[in-house]
């Protein structure tokens, strides 16, 4: 029982971690709480589903299509909505909620209100690890998460644009002084952030049934995780994703499924009141 809950918890932590990582990059660099990512998560789940089911494309390629479209929409959002909003000193969070509303309802008109789901034809074998059972596909997602998170970490540490992203997130004015263009960095960050969210949406589309309001919940959790972990901190994101993912499954397993969502909010509130800069964060709030 406990091993099973732990495995499920690790799996949900992985999906949360990917989404939270995308959000924390964007929030750290741009100071935008981009709730519209929830819509992009849903959009990429739908795209992967449609491409795989109706166009008959290989699932791997349909994930790629979903990622590309999601990051394209994310960058367009940044250019059309967030940049003008920031320039005029308007609240980008509110603008993001507007974008969320628009994309969700457009999707409602296009895709309809029904729940969708499609079974995968491969990687459905069950594997026994200790006393828990998990499908190969979920195992693949966990491995992918590890690889992607490591890649992002290396990218931020070593590559030139990664260093630029970190510079802007630590001190925007200072970065501008030394000649780092904020516009280009912001577009790049948005591209990577939304690609992460899109990847997650596409990856989980064969597992959960989803409708057009699919992403709202995970994006709220993602924010809770990125704030709890400390903005811009990859280690913090991983740790708080594990806390919330496993805690949620523990509550659902031993107590009640209805209140399993509550752990997110409890953890977030505790973090905000006792350590507002996050578990591993440095920035004062």
């Amino acid at each position, binding site marked *: 029982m406990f091993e099973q809950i732990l495995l499920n918890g690790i799996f949900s932590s992985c999906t949360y971690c990917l989404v939270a990582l995308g959000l924390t990059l964007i929030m750290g660099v741009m100071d935008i*709480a981009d709730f519209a990512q929830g819509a992009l998560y849903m959009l990429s789940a739908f795209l992967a589903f449609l491409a795989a089911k109706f166009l008959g494309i290989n699932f791997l390629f349909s994930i790629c299509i979903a990622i590309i479209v999601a990051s394209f929409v994310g960058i367009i959002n940044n250019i059309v909505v967030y940049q003008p*909003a920031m320039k005029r000193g*308007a609240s980008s969070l*509110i*603008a993001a909620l507007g*974008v969320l509303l628009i994309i969700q*309802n457009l999707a409602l008109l296009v895709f309809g209100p029904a729940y969708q789901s499609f079974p995968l034809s491969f990687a459905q074998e069950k594997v026994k690890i200790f006393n828990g059972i998990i499908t190969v596909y979920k195992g693949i997602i966990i491995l992918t998460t590890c690889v992607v998170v490591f890649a992002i970490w290396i990218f931020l540490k070593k590559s030139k644009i990664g260093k630029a992203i970190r510079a802007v997130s630590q001190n925007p004015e200072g970065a501008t002084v030394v000649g780092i263009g904020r516009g280009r960095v912001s577009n790049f960050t948005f591209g990577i952030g939304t690609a992460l969210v899109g990847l997650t949406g596409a990856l989980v589309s064969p597992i959960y049934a989803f409708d057009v309001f699919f992403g709202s919940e995970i994006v709220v959790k993602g924010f809770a995780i990125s*704030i709890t972990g400390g903005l811009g901190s990859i280690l913090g994101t991983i740790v708080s994703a594990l806390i919330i993912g496993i805690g949620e499954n523990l509550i659902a397993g031993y107590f009640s499924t209805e209140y399993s969502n*509550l752990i997110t909010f409890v953890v977030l509130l505790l973090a905000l009141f006792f350590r507002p800069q996050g578990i591993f964060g440095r920035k004062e709030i």
Partner: protein
Amino acid sequence: MILFRNKIFWVSLAIALSIILPLIIKKPYIHHMLVLIGINIIVVLSLDMILGHVGLVSLGHAGFMGIGGYTCALLVMNWKFPFLLGLFGGMLTSSAFGLLIGYPSLRLKGHYFVIITFIMGIVLTLFFTNLVSITNGPMGLPNIPSAKIKVGDILFINFNTKIKYYYLILTFIFIVIYIKHRFYYSRMGRGLLAIREDEDLGKSIGINTHLLKVIAFVISTAFTGMAGGLFAHYVKSIAPDSFTFIPSFYFFVMNLVGGSGTILGPIIGSSLLTTTDELSQLYFQPAWARILFGVFLIVFIIYVPMGIMGLVKKLFSKEKYE
């Protein structure tokens, strides 16, 4: 022409119009819409106490409305409270929750307060849905009795028709506007204005900014709770669906579009957007209205942050000085 510049003339004209309006137009559907607009006006007016006066965005107000609605309905149904006392109970519970949530979270700045209110709204919906023994869960509370006001043997009114309920709501709107007006021009209101313009500067001249913000938040949630009670007794059955984050969000859009920090702004905003929403449910799919709301929101927050009232004021001030 001096008549048109006179504020009292315009105010009394507006009051007279709001009293006669349902008597001229006799369609029940219009009456229904007027009542809904009225309830939304109360919520948006109280939301404006936070947004307009202090400059804080709250995205959880539908949750407080739900607290007020559920409390009022339960008090009236299970404990046989009179309507007005139930309404007061709803206000009290809602403001107690406002204090509980506002006191710690109003210390946070920027995005974080917004995110907290947003999340609190979701948590409250979660409780409405899952505390089945109290709220009857997702099925909601059915058969809420119509509002009755009884004062001894002298006065007994049963607000069972739409027109009667409209006048009840109108009375409450006037009360809220009066309180808001007095609040705005009080010492406390000026303190809040100082916080909106520059919080640190306000602190430096000895304003207890945190206390003032908490007071404003509590008053705002109290009136939102009252609106919830009024809503519950009008629609006669409430479910958690009415109090999710989507209505919270609408209230915010209404306030923004109308113009924050004014009395007329919330009224214009709620009338405009509630009408749009209702009409779209009648003639198109509601999704189109939501898309329109989103577009409104983005355009207004970027290009017209002062809302329609801000535009009007700009227009009038130009006439004066040029």
